[in-house]
């Protein structure tokens, strides 16, 4: 490993060093403000180093495990930026919850490291290590609150299902390794040509098992059963992390795997992804209609959103629409990150004074417009973006998805997107409507400064980039071009 390799690894090195530093600081002095400050400085310097490396280093492999290129720069930048916002929101959320909250921040940084590894991974070894790093940190984050068994139940569900899905991925990778003799994505592609029938089936079954495992992690229908319970039981910042950083990192690795291995050459797999996308959109949206808790609504809506993302993912199977489809999926993920962190951030801010479980009944939000107009406006912006209303980032993202579907002529998927968005509008607007109704409750809602500013920035980005998305679009399309 030479100096150039070490330079390309700079973001990972800085992130790891700051994790160790934060751990040592926690060991000597427990101070949540200091821990959060160090975490934010660490993540911010990682972000700077990602920008620096992305602009000056040549793309290439650093050891067979890690691939540094424009794609990994984009995704790791997105993930680390999300980490900063979530840590700011976590600070406000954890501040009033008694002692020993520092490890949450440490675990947050560790799972960010896992997701950054996933964004860089070009090999099954780094892929699985990254996946487990995200997963293991999340088990503890989901069950973090030291009171109540609710979080523990959620963590247990997540632990079991995530363990099963990891087993699926490992078994699938082993089957592919048995035939191909390598675990590197690009080498697998070159030795996947000219196989006998039995070997072909080994690869096919292996890929399917890997996809099933990833389906669990991305909570796509029919692997979605755990999602609402885990989202509901976990503390809101952990839910935000689970919904964005974890899923984003895994999707980045999945897309890279499929593009370099050319998983689209297997019709059976493309076909099943097609149905997974349709089912996720329809079932996610329909089940969201019946929920009375905001976190459960957001859980089902995240299932539906991952379904929209899979529409773009499937569109990449058609050669003519490949570049647009990659562009669409990256941009949609970008919009999804900002919107989802914002939405769960509002839930976290609302619950930051309460000691027990989070305030996520819709009734808690009744009359929010009269009590806390700014917070209600932020929340409405996030919900409208999830619904895909123009002038928000969510609209541009959904527009991209539809464009990718049209380019690849996948009409059935487009019909599902339209129906899903129609249903979605109803339950998002129902929450906004309940925020406008009058209420007699005059329980004060305090908005902490850090979390409030983080939310404000997110809402600003949401609207600003929704109106002027050009810069992001240019960036994303140059990355998509480099992936073809």
């Amino acid at each position: 490993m030479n100096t150039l390799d070490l330079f390309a690894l700079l973001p990972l090195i800085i992130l790891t060093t700051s994790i160790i530093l934060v751990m040592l600081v926690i060991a000597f002095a427990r101070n949540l403000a200091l821990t959060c400050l160090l975490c934010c400085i660490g993540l911010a310097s990682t972000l700077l180093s990602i920008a620096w490396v992305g602009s000056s280093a040549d793309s290439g492999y650093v050891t067979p495990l890690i691939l540094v290129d424009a794609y990994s720069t984009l995704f790791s930048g997105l993930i680390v930026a999300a980490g900063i916002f979530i840590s700011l929101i976590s600070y406000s959320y954890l501040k009033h919850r008694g002692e020993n909250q520092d490890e949450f921040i440490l675990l947050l940084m560790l799972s960010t490291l896992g997701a950054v590894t996933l964004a860089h991974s070009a090999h099954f070894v780094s892929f699985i290590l990254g996946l487990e790093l995200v997963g293991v940190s999340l088990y503890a984050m989901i069950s973090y609150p030291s009171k109540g068994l609710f979080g523990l139940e959620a963590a247990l569900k997540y632990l079991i299902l995530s363990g099963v899905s990891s087993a699926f991925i490992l078994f699938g990778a082993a089957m592919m390794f048995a035939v191909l003799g390598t675990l590197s994505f690009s080498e697998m592609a070159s030795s996947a040509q000219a196989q006998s029938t039995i070997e072909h089936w080994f690869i096919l079954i292996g890929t399917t098992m890997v996809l099933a495992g990833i389906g669990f992690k991305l909570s796509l229908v029919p692997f979605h059963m755990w999602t609402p319970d885990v989202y509901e039981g976990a503390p809101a910042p952990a839910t935000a992390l689970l919904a964005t950083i974890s899923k984003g990192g895994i999707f980045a690795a999945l897309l890279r795997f499929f593009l370099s291995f050319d998983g689209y050459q297997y019709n059976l797999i493309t076909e099943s992804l097609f149905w997974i996308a349709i089912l996720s959109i329809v079932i996610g949206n329909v089940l969201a209609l019946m929920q009375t808790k905001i976190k459960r609504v957001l859980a089902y809506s995240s299932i539906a959103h991952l379904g929209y993302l899979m529409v773009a993912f499937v569109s990449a199977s058609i050669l003519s629409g490949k570049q647009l489809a990659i562009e669409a999926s990256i941009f949609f993920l970008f919009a999804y990150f900002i919107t989802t962190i914002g939405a769960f951030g509002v839930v976290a801010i609302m619950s930051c004074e309460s000691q027990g479980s989070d305030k996520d009944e819709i009734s808690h939000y009744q009359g929010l417009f009269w009590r806390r107009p700014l917070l209600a406006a932020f929340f409405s912006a996030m919900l409208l973006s999830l619904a895909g209303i123009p002038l928000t980032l969510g609209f541009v993202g959904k527009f991209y998805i539809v464009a990718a579907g049209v380019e690849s002529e996948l009409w059935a998927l487009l019909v599902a997107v339209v129906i899903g968005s129609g249903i979605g509008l109803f339950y998002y607007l129902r929450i906004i409507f309940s925020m406008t109704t009058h209420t007699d409750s005059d329980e004060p809602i305090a908005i902490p400064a850090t979390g409030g500013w983080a939310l404000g920035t997110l809402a600003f980005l949401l609207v600003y980039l929704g109106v002027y998305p050009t810069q992001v679009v240019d960036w994303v399309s140059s990355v998509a071009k480099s992936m073809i």
Partner: protein
Amino acid sequence: MLELGLFYIAATVSLVSTIMAVTRYNAAHALIYLIISLLASAIIFYLVGAPFAAVLEVVIYAGAIMVLFVFVIMMLNLGASGDTEEHALLNPSMWIGPSILCAVLFGEIVYVLSGAQQTLAGQVIGPKAVGLELFGPYVLAVELASMLLLAALVGAYHLGRRYFIDAREQDNG
């Protein structure tokens, strides 16, 4: 051909013991079958020319982790019910199955180690080769695994604390 026969015997032992481990109702019995399953896979590793992996399988999985599990489960069964439980362990129907499987594996390993038999693969991967790979191209995997262990450690520490807190509150009232 005989090597292949040895492989199939070890594979059968591994399958049988895993199925038994999954279907046992008593956790201690299940763990004993699981240990045998791990020993059988260690022999398979040895037969395919990976003696170092075989040793690790025995030392780490069967030796450390599983014995720890057995201890924890046995310690949880304290009291009068624990005594009857342990009495039941001495019942022949409980230990005869694992013993037979173990005896098969033992016979096999004695036969292989007596030098009568070569391993399946022509090439034997020793500890040096494994070490060179681990600290050469896969050094980042080692680093990432250490961060993974850190995450697990911090998480386990935090989750373990809540029981201390619960116990302290119970003591106070």
